[in-house]
């Protein structure tokens, strides 16, 4: 394909792509997202390829490997279009039948369907599965239609239409006005209004202006940017070109985690394809506007999510933040005006231009517009990525979409906002999820991690986990963050090891306040959130550790003991073999085993292996 030199040429290409495709032709869509690949999608893909070839159906059935569909719990995920029939957890042995029965004849194979655990009913169509039905997938939904390595797939979905509209019908000011009016706020954590940021950068004085896409998703438990970049890289690229046009930038960077090899590969391919078609590079679509985009791989540092640290890293320096007396939109990369947004924010832009700010602004809550993608993980039945309108309640996300807590356990808290966020207790389940409400509750939106915790999760341990994580990730430049985190981790470790003292909670709170007031960058200022939110909502649990030397959730090793429940133990001996210490003794068949507490190192091997719940942690 040659370079497109005008709006008409782009539309002609789009028309020819759509015409060449038969919407009624059976298409097997396989999710190739990270979750599904880990569950064996690679083998499923090759089995489908082989079967289609062996059955001589190459011309009759299409096969499409896409990015993540979001329902990671049930991967590998296979979808048959045009009907939209969903088969979860597909196995190699089912492949031949899926092709001959469903793809060719259109028959539904009952035994392979998704079973709704709450009603025990089989559900044939993806759209009808509660997990999907209750979402609003305006950004993420396209993933299921796109092979990320095929630009034609994106073009067929009106891809780059927003770009041509911008370049040929709108002035830079009009683009900024539209984004401002839409109410879009940054999805990377800060929630700063995107249009205002663009405007400041446009107005800033500088020879060269830069735009950056942040795909250095360092929040442990969030992977929506990864899935967008892997599954639909052109949506972020298109957003970037529109933003560059609005701001007046001609150079852009994508800063992407090296731990995301598939995302790196797919965005590389996407850039090459877009350049080849004249949608990126010099004289885009013959409009005279230029933008080149380079990829820069991150070295694995959470602090590089902070804008000034990220820019330092882009300059080949250590990723340390600097004080922001002067904002990065004024002086950022190489001291030039720089606009940074994350993947999800950029991916929202084409939608706003295509459908209009008014349409966009009617989705969401008063001050948080549009949708947000959350990674719903932890102790939850339907693990996955969910896209919901801002303002939805936590309860709806956890129970209606997430399907509640596994094994009938009791809900305890949901942690949002990553390491800088906080834990929200059961009493606030009806909280509406948007930027402001989450902050009021002592947590934050962050990049959209949502980790569900049940009665077996210890909140002191969780606070320690985040503090230890941040201690490792603190760049060490400013004292409150560097030393504050170390002290907090030591106090929390003492508490979890039964060495907690009266006054520790208050000391933690004082330390927290100092860090909030005096840290240099956002990492340090928000680092105490996990501690502050848990001491606020789960104070009794701290007290149980400090006063009673007990861990009610049964997590903190020094405070618990494994015990055999004699009436449940038939003496099968599985745990005897599993114990690495020889601490469990076989007493004969049908007699309960005996556990020697002296030898026990509390590794949990016996607890894991016992199928009869005959071992308890107390």
């Amino acid at each position: 394909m040659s370079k497109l030199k005008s709006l008409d040429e782009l539309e002609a290409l789009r028309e020819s792509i759509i015409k060449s495709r038969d919407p009624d032709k059976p298409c097997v869509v396989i999710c190739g997202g990270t979750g599904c690949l880990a569950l064996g999608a690679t083998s499923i893909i090759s089995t489908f390829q082989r079967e289609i070839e062996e059955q001589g159906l190459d011309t009759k059935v299409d096969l499409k490997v896409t990015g993540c569909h979001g329902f990671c719990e049930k991967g590998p995920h296979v979808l048959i279009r045009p009907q939209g029939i969903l088969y979860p957890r597909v196995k190699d042995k089912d492949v031949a039948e899926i092709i001959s029965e469903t793809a060719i004849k259109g028959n539904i194979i009952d035994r392979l369907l998704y079973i709704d655990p709450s009603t025990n009913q089989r559900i044939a169509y993806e759209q009808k599965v509660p997990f999907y039905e209750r979402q609003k997938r305006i950004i993420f939904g396209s993933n299921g239609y796109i092979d990320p390595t095929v630009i034609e797939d994106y073009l067929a979905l009106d891809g780059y239409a927003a770009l041509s509209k911008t370049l040929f019908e709108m002035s830079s000011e009009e683009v900024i006005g539209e984004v401002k009016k839409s109410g879009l706020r940054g999805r990377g954590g800060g929630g700063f209004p995107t249009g205002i940021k663009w405007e400041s950068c446009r107005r800033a004085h500088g020879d060269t202006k830069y735009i950056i896409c942040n795909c250095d998703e360092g929040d442990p438990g969030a992977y929506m940017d990864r899935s967008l970049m892997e599954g639909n890289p052109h949506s972020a690229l298109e957003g970037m070109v529109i933003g560059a046009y609005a701001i007046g930038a001609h150079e852009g960077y994508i800063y992407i985690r090296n731990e995301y090899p598939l995302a790196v590969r797919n965005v590389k391919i996407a850039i090459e394809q877009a350049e080849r078609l004249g949608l990126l590079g010099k004289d885009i679509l013959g409009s005279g506007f230029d933008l080149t985009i380079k990829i820069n791989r991150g070295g694995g540092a959470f602090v590089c999510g902070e804008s000034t640290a990220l820019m330092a890293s882009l300059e080949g320096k250590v990723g340390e933040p600097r004080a922001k007396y002067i904002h990065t939109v004024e002086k950022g990369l190489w001291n030039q005006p720089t606009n940074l947004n994350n993947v999800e924010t950029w991916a929202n832009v084409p939608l706003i231009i295509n459908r209009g700010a008014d349409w966009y602004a009617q989705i969401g809550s008063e001050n948080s517009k549009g949708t947000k993608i959350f990674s719903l993980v932890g102790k939850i039945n339907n693990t996955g990525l969910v896209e919901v309108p801002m303002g939805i309640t936590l309860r709806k996300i956890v129970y209606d979409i997430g399907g509640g807590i596994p094994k009938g356990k009791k809900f305890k808290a949901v942690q949002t906002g990553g390491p800088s966020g906080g834990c929200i207790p059961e009493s606030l389940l009806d909280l509406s999820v948007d930027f402001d409400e989450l902050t009021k509750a002592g947590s934050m939106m962050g990049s959209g991690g949502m980790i569900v915790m049940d009665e077996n999760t210890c909140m002191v341990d969780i606070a320690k986990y985040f503090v230890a994580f941040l201690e490792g990730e603190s760049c060490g430049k400013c004292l409150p963050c560097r030393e504050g985190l170390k002290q907090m981790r030591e106090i929390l470790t003492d508490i979890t090891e039964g060495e907690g003292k009266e006054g520790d909670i208050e000391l933690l709170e004082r330390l927290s306040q100092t860090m909030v007031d005096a840290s240099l960058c956002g990492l340090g200022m928000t680092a105490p959130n996990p501690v502050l939110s848990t001491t606020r909502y789960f104070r009794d649990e701290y007290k149980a550790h400090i006063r009673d030397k007990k861990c009610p959730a049964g997590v903190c090793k020094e405070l618990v003991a494994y015990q055999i429940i004699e009436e449940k133990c038939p003496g099968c001996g599985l745990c005897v073999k599993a114990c690495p210490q020889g601490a469990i003794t076989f007493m004969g068949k049908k007699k309960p085993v005996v556990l020697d507490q002296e030898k026990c190192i509390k590794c949990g091997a016996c607890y894991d292996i016992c199928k009869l719940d005959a071992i308890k942690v107390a």
Partner: protein
Amino acid sequence: MKKKVEAILNKYQQDKGMLVSILQDVQAENNYLPKGALKHVSESLGIPLTRVYSVATFFKAFSLKPRGRHIINVCLGTACHVRGAPRILEAIERELGIKSGETTKDLKYTLETVNCVGACALGPIVIIDGEPSGEMKVEKVKPLLGSHE
């Protein structure tokens, strides 16, 4: 090694701003960052060795010591943590007799931790040489380690 480093430097047009990417490629080639390579990068790009060193020690992805033939990554993302990842890490440490961040004496395994690999549905998850093993349990550790040469 010199030639390989030179090739990497040229791939990035000797661009100082690409230092992190250059070091990543050097590490991919050698499986760690040898001293000689760091010196070469420093001289060639005209960046003081101290700064190359500070970058090489700042980012988690880099190692200044030779690493094992097999790289074990235990995911300690929050979702894996609440599903019991610390116990899995302990079991692997016990089995190999090393701590996280260390390499076995025979250079067979390097044990590392990672913060979220984006496969949270499978937590706790362990990745050896890029191959994920999900829903890990303490008793699965021994057979998993035993399956590598």
